[in-house]
């Protein structure tokens, strides 16, 4: 039983990271109807920025905040420079754009910081959390930061005017323009926020997977699995999907013989395919009530 509880709690901790990545993917998907394959690489690059800042002697939380600001601006810049001009281009052109972005960021990180694996610090420590052997303080910290982030985002989208405007721009762009919303900037803002959310995920998971240019590859696939499971049209679903995938991943690795650590990733891919076949809209995919 203790093994089970332990695995579930650890699953929730990594699930928090998947939830963040899924949320970032869904935010961009809502804004421009494309999956951002480079989301993980963007998060990795942000994490390297924070690492570099710490190497230069900046404290953890200062580096954390500077990285968030950097990621926000960088996300907006990527949208303005690369994807705004592609807005009306065919879907394959956009996919090529995302793959190019993936390759460019991955290679640049390798060029600047090389491909060796680096230790990444945790501000929470890795002692047992509250004296319990079930979960470490870093895992508890991952969950805590994610929950704070999600509450903040919920408040932002539900109760601020700019959040309302962003939702409007994503749901009915033409009507949004007709009430005076600059939808183009709302998309850019969405990119900035998604990039910052990805940066948080990267910085929280780096102590676990270690820092290197390919660190987010697996994480992003879990993020995609979470987004598909929850429904690409539902930010709430993406978050729930993230936690579910985290727990599922750990339990499958522990209890299904032969899965272990090596076959965990194929499980995420199998999950994506199963959901797409059985329930393409995902668990919480938007069911729009419409009367005609």
């Amino acid at each position: 039983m203790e093994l089970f509880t332990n695995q579930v709690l650890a699953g929730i901790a990594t699930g928090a990271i998947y939830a963040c990545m899924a949320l970032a993917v869904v935010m961009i998907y809502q804004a421009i109807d494309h999956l951002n394959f480079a989301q993980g690489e963007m998060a990795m690059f942000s994490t390297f920025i924070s690492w570099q800042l710490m190497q230069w002697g900046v404290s953890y939380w200062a580096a954390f905040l500077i990285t968030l600001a950097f990621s926000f601006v960088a996300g907006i810049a990527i949208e303005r420079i690369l994807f705004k001009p592609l807005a009306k281009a065919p879907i394959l052109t956009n996919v090529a754009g995302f793959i190019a972005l993936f390759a460019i960021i991955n290679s640049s990180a390798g060029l600047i910081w090389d491909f060796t694996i680096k230790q990444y610090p945790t501000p929470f420590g890795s002692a047992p959390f509250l004296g319990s052997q079930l979960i470490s303080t870093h895992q508890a910290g991952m969950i805590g930061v994610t929950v704070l982030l999600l509450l903040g985002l919920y408040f932002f989208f539900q109760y601020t005017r700019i959040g309302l405007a962003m939702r409007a721009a994503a749901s009915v762009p033409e009507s949004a323009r007709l009430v005076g919303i600059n939808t183009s900037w709302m998309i850019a803002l969405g990119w900035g926020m998604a990039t910052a959310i990805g940066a948080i995920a990267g910085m929280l998971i780096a102590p676990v997977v270690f820092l290197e240019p390919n660190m987010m590859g697996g994480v992003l696939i879990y993020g995609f699995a979470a987004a598909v499971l929850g429904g690409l049209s539902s930010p709430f679903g993406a978050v729930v999907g993230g936690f579910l995938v985290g727990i599922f991943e750990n339990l499958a690795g522990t209890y299904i013989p032969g899965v272990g650590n090596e076959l965990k990733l194929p499980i995420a891919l199998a999950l994506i395919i199963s959901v797409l076949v059985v329930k393409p809209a995902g668990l919480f995919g938007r069911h729009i009530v419409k009367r005609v």
Partner: protein
Amino acid sequence: MTTLLNVKDLRAYYGQVQALHGLSFSLNEGSLTTLLGANGAGKTTTLRAICNMVRSTGAIEFDGKPLNNRSTENIVRFGIAHVPQGRGTFTTMTVEENLQLGAITRKDSAGIVSDIERMYAHFPVLKQRHTQQAGTLSGGEQQMLAVARALMLRPRLMLLDEPSFGLAPLVVRDLFGILGKINREDKVSILVVEQNAQLALELADHAYVIETGRIVMSGKAKDIANNEEIRKSYLGY
């Protein structure tokens, strides 16, 4: 009477296809003007061209200021509220959020709150449903919501694209009654595009008739309604 909207030699294009062929008309401050014509005559395109939602040439002046080359969202900030064909409801959001979105360019939060109450007074059914997802409203209710959303801008000019479309005759009467009241009491100038010519001519003070992208007739709504020849050849009733 000052001219609020002045359109001169408007030509509009969808890709290579020209939809408006040099259309000119004007609208006085405080008036309720209607643009009539058959399907495909260019009524919707005219409204869309005013808000720069379709490629066009020619001069469009609002209150003496040119609107050409401004983005749709900037034109809204001049106080032009456009209720598009199909109502443009934010279906996944609540009724109240739809109203708040109508006022999204305004800064006076106290005024917005009191205007929402004013809209609920105009349209009591919206108050009953203010927490409901807007997509669940009936067609007539959604049209009321669309008009209310447009009014939340505190517009000087309201553009309405076929507000009667798909609504039951009684609901249409109701709606047109409210439009007349808004025009008289709130001093909002209105340009309404309609296929239901009879009804529109009862409501409006001035009318233009469009055929294949050109104005073919204009005058007082009363005169046009009383001219049997025009009615038969252009308006079909």
